[in-house]
Each structure stands twice: as structure tokens, then as C-alpha cells.
């Protein structure tokens, strides 16, 4: 009985290893960003490329904010944008007062991207952060 079980166990282990190896995907990451007194904390975040990252945005302020992440052209567009709220796209998140929101993004290439709140006056007040993608 035992002699039958050992090869079966080995086969099961080998099979599991093969399956794991074939479907190897990096574990998703979770980054919590606090919004307090109209500032992001941390304002500098590092994540690996090619890995889904879930950003949890916790707004402790009694005013609404937004978290928009992208390149320079993206931000320039939002500086003069007219959208009253965001939520359709994972890189544009509105966070109501005293609430939290989350979004998941995967960055394919290493590099830096900036996240900003584009409510009037908020960027100038310092509501800017940098995401380093390694």
C-alpha cells in the first residue's frame, strides 16, 4: 500500500510544481496612500513593473480629493479638464471626503510617473507624489 502511495505523492508534487511554474505570476502588491491635510503620504512610492498594484487611498480630510496618475501630457490635460468626477478609468480616482477608494494598475515599463490631485489649488498646495516603477 505504502509503495503505491509514494510514487503517487511524487507525481502529485511534480504536477503541482509544473502547474505553478507555468502559471507563475507575481503576487499582486498593495500600497496604502493616506491623504491628510491635502498631502499624500507617502508622497514617494516604489513598485515593480509588470505586477498588479492595488492602491488604497484613504482620505482623512473633510474635503474631496482625487488621485490621478500618469505622464506629463496626462496631467496637462487634467489641469484644464472639466470632468466633475472620476471613476471610469483605473488611473483616475475620485476620493470623497472622509472616505477611501481603491484601484488596481499594472505598470509595464520601469520609470517614474506622477500622481496629483487636480482640484483647484491642490497641486500648488503640494498634493503631488511620485511613483517609481522599477
Amino acid at each position: 500500500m505504502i509503495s503505491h502511495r509514494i510514487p503517487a505523492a511524487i507525481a502529485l508534487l511534480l504536477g503541482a510544481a509544473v502547474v505553478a511554474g507555468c502559471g507563475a505570476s507575481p503576487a499582486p502588491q498593495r500600497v496604502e496612500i493616506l491623504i491628510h491635510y491635502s498631502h499624500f503620504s507617502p508622497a514617494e512610492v516604489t513598485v515593480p513593473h509588470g505586477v498588479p498594484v492595488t492602491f488604497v487611498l484613504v482620505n482623512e480630510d473633510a474635503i474631496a480629493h482625487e488621485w490621478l496618475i500618469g505622464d506629463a501630457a496626462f496631467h496637462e490635460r487634467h489641469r484644464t479638464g472639466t470632468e466633475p468626477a472620476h471613476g471610469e478609468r483605473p488611473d483616475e480616482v475620485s476620493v470623497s471626503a472622509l472616505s477611501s477608494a481603491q484601484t488596481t494598475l499594472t505598470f509595464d515599463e520601469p520609470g517614474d510617473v506622477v500622481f496629483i490631485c487636480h482640484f483647484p489649488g491642490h497641486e500648488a498646495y503640494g498634493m503631488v507624489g511620485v511613483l517609481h516603477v522599477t
Partner: protein
Amino acid sequence: MRRLISLVAATTALLVFAGPTLGCAGLIGPNGAVNLLRTTTFAGYHDGVEHYVTSFAFAGGEGEFGSLVPLPDVPTKVERGGDWTLQRLNIETEPQLFLAADAARVGAAEAQVLLEVRIDALDITILRGGGAEVGAWATEHGFRLPPDAPEVLDFYANRSPIFLAAVFDADAAAERGQAVGDGTPVHLTIPTDDPWVPLRILALGKTEADIVEADVYLLTDHRPGLLPAPGSAFGPNGLELAHSGKANDLLLDDLRSDAGMEWIPDSAWLTKVRVNGSAADITFDLAIDPEGGAPSLADAGFLPYGPTPAPWATPRAWALLAFALALPLLAAWFAASVIRGRESPPLAGA
């Protein structure tokens, strides 16, 4: 007099906000950058009661404007202010103004509404709550708070969780025939042991380089102690002592004859503090000791109650203090050296 009233724009300021909250930049609504002119307030303190008079000016436009005013304590009465108190004080100290006049919740409790009053085109609500509660209340009532609001509201709520929220209905003001620059004076009666006048709120929503201008009149039984102490000219704190002297009988009689001002005593000290500093510098309030003593750090909102060290706690002040302390020691050392020199024996061979 009416002409004078409209010219001498006794305006209040504590900014703010109107219209729906909009995402993305460049969407400050027509009322977003409130054109509040110079702020004038009057704080009279007598028999343990502060009488706070300020004026909410109609700056034109449409819709609703909002203002938040932090208070040192709970008012027992909010009423329309007299017609000429602020103007009369202005004339007393600056007669030249006749010529120069220009015009998923993270969690917070709800703010408690203590009092609601309608005065002309103003809806006034007295609130009790922390910064988050009052901010949430304001947001829910259509106020568009600027990004520094959470910190500034906490700055006040940590010392006194009482706020006045005023919503100015510009349409109603226009219907009432109020012209741009006309103010609605509001008189608050506030029993308190710790009178102070909010200054930091005047910088709310401004950039660091923006200038905050205000005139603050104080009427106290004695020459008051002030913190920070205004200088004879504008100093680093942006305050100037523009007037300080015993109030004359004519002024007191004039003030007493205005509506709601019968409390004016027979004898008082009139102080005028002019504020003219950058928003980055006005990070404190004006604390008052009506008896002439030293006001508290808490009432002025200096460290640890606010972001700025007290005037005597800055490096420069410490250096001056060290020099002042060292001066007598140096003098004593010098005197001792001279005396020793006189007492020492003549040099050999002399």
C-alpha cells in the same frame, strides 16, 4: 452717512466657496476666488463678555457665498450689527479714509448646530465640532473648501470647536438692493474668558505670497496685552499698532447709540491693530488679555497649538535674549577688570 458706509467697505473675509465641487483644475467657479476686500472687525470685551462685530460684504456676482469664522466660545446671541459701529471706529482712527476710501467614511461625527439665524441676505449657523465635522458640514452645505481648510479647521477646533458659518445669498442681496461693497454687519455676544480674534482664517485659500489685510478694533476696560505684540510699524508678524489710547467720551457715546451697543462702558481703551502680511506669515491669531497681562500661547495659536513658534521662541529672539542677558555680565566683567587694574601694584621700575 450711508454713502460713507458704502465707501468704507467694512468687509469680512474668511473666504470661500460656492457652487458645486468640480474635478480637475481650472474650475474655480465665478465665486471660487472670493473678492473679499479688507476685513474689518471689532472685538469689545467688558464684564467677561466679548462683543464681536464684523461685516459680510456683498462682492457682486450670483448664487451663494460662504464664510467660516472661528469663535472663542459659544455665542449667546447673534444679531444684526449696528449701522455705524465699524465705520465710526474707522473714522476715529483714520479720518483720511474720507478721501482714500476704495472700496465609505473614514469616520467623523456630525457637527452640532447650536444656532441658526437669518440676517438680511445672510444665513448664519453656529456650529460645534472638530475640524473634520465642521468641514464635512460645510461641504455638505455647498461650501467649496480650499486645500488648506482641513489643517486650518483643525487648528481652530483644537482650541475652540465653535464656528460661525455664513452663507451669503447674492441673489437675495441683489433683490434687497444691496450694492457691491455694501456690508451686512453681524454682532455676536460671546461670554468667554479667553478673547481672541481669528487672523489665520483670513489666509484660508490664499497662496503663500498673497497679502492678508485686515483692521482689528479692540475696546477693553484697560490697555490690553496682545500676543503677538504689534509693532509701531509692520514687523515680521505683519501687525502694526495703528492706534492705542483711551477712548474719548464722544466716541463711546456714538458707539453706545448704535443698535445693540448699549453695553459700551463709560470708560474704555481703544486699540487698532492693522494686519498686512503674506498669507504664509499669518499663521496665528490675535490673543487678548483685557487686563493688560500676558495672553496665552494657546489663544494666539502658537506652538504647540499651531505651526509657528511664539515670537520669543524663534532663533532670532533667543539670540537677542542671550545677548540681553549677556550684556550685564559683560559690563560687570569689564567693571571688575577696571577695578582690578586700579588696585594692581605699579609695574616694577615705574
